[in-house]
């Protein structure tokens, strides 16, 4: 009886394989889509349109006098041009009507937003290309969707600690905890 059951057990390979394939499909293809919640930017901001007007990157993204970095322009900066509608684009109309006129800051979704206990200095990384870390939005007409991890709440593109550490190690920069943590 014992031997018979053991030989019969080889027939279980097919259900096992089916189960294996199903779980592989689930974990590789479905699960990553489930944990990331896709969201579009509140305003369809076109970098190309602004570049066509002859604007420089540093007009909006610049270092302040104390070395801190102004990543996103404020409403006041936008209002320097957008006091009234400048074009026909519905995205601009939406921005002026819903945010500028109401004095509300645009809740831009930041692709690289880091946790609270991480300190990042743009000034210290001045020598790198922006696109080494950030998606190349400068040439985009429609900003790419933002993927938020529903478990952690962070963006899919947020740089992971091992990526920071690897680059620091390769560049001979200290990896002491307090270099990046606060």
């Amino acid at each position: 009886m014992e031997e018979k059951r053991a030989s019969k057990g080889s027939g279980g390979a097919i259900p096992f394989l089916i189960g294996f394939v199903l779980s592989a499909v689930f974990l590789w293809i479905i699960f990553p889509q489930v944990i990331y919640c896709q969201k579009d930017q509140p305003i369809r901001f076109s970098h190309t349109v602004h570049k066509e007007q002859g604007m420089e990157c540093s007009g909006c993204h610049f270092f302040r006098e104390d070395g801190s970095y102004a990543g996103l322009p404020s409403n006041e900066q936008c209002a320097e041009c957008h006091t009234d509608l400048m074009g026909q684009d519905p995205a601009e109309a939406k921005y002026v009507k819903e945010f500028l006129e109401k004095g509300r800051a645009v809740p831009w979704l930041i692709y690289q937003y880091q946790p609270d206990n991480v300190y990042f200095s743009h000034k210290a990384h001045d020598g790198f290309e922006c696109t080494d870390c950030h998606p190349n939005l400068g040439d985009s007409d429609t900003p790419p969707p933002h993927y938020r991890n529903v478990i952690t709440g962070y963006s899919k593109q947020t740089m992971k600690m091992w990526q920071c550490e690897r680059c620091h190690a390769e560049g001979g920069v200290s990896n002491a905890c307090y270099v990046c943590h606060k």
Partner: protein
Amino acid sequence: MSHGHAKEFKVRWGMVVDVDKCTGCGACMVACQVENNISPMVRQDKENYLPSMTFERDDPSNKMRTLTWLMVYELSNRKDYPDHEVAFLPRPCMQCGNPACVPVCPVVATDKNEEGGIVSQIYPRCIGCRYCMAACPYHARYFNWFDPIWPKGMDKALSPRTSVRPRGVVEKCNFCHTRFLKAKERARQEGIDPNELPEGYYTPACVEVCPTGAITFGDLNNPEHKVHQLAHGKYAFRLLEKLGLDPQVYYLTKRDWVRKQGDNYLANEEPHAKKH
């Protein structure tokens, strides 16, 4: 110390506190709490309150449960009037050269590794075992017994420079470390070498706020910084110097009885100034 060799740093941030100048006003303690997002103790957690199931939090005056990264102690010479004298001794983390807390940490949540010699504490890594608190002879480390609660409106005044800590982790003074990072950033912007910060670029909150100027801060290794001279002066001493932890915080006093309370001297022993 028996545990390995102390790490050498080119820059050693240090503090010199003139005990004779300290009036015990407590402004440094307040500045520290604000800068480092330390919540005031609230007796009742209204958000998570279930009658008969929730214990009330401790009394705000219970110093065993509150967080005071910088603590001002009152010292007394224990003599009767008219000979009675008091002194006030602010106690931050000593940022020891041979920290007692670092080798005992089982998860490397605390380390002395960064240029400047500040002992780091990484809250998400801390498992709350509190070995470091037991090891620290200065009682400079504090445990979060409760989640922080800010009274309504006060959460709007939180500093974005410091991360907030949850219940169950240990924290301590870090010489307002993000101010150091900010100072390096400013130096880079101005084209100055961030590893040779001029005096005054990096100042912790307690030093900045002290109304009598009792606290001086700077690089102990740099002869151009005022702390270098003060720490090597005649009236300088350190707390529990006999333990050999090599603290980066120095105290100044001209009063022998104050100096005597800074270490465990024998009754017939004369307290001595720092040896070089």
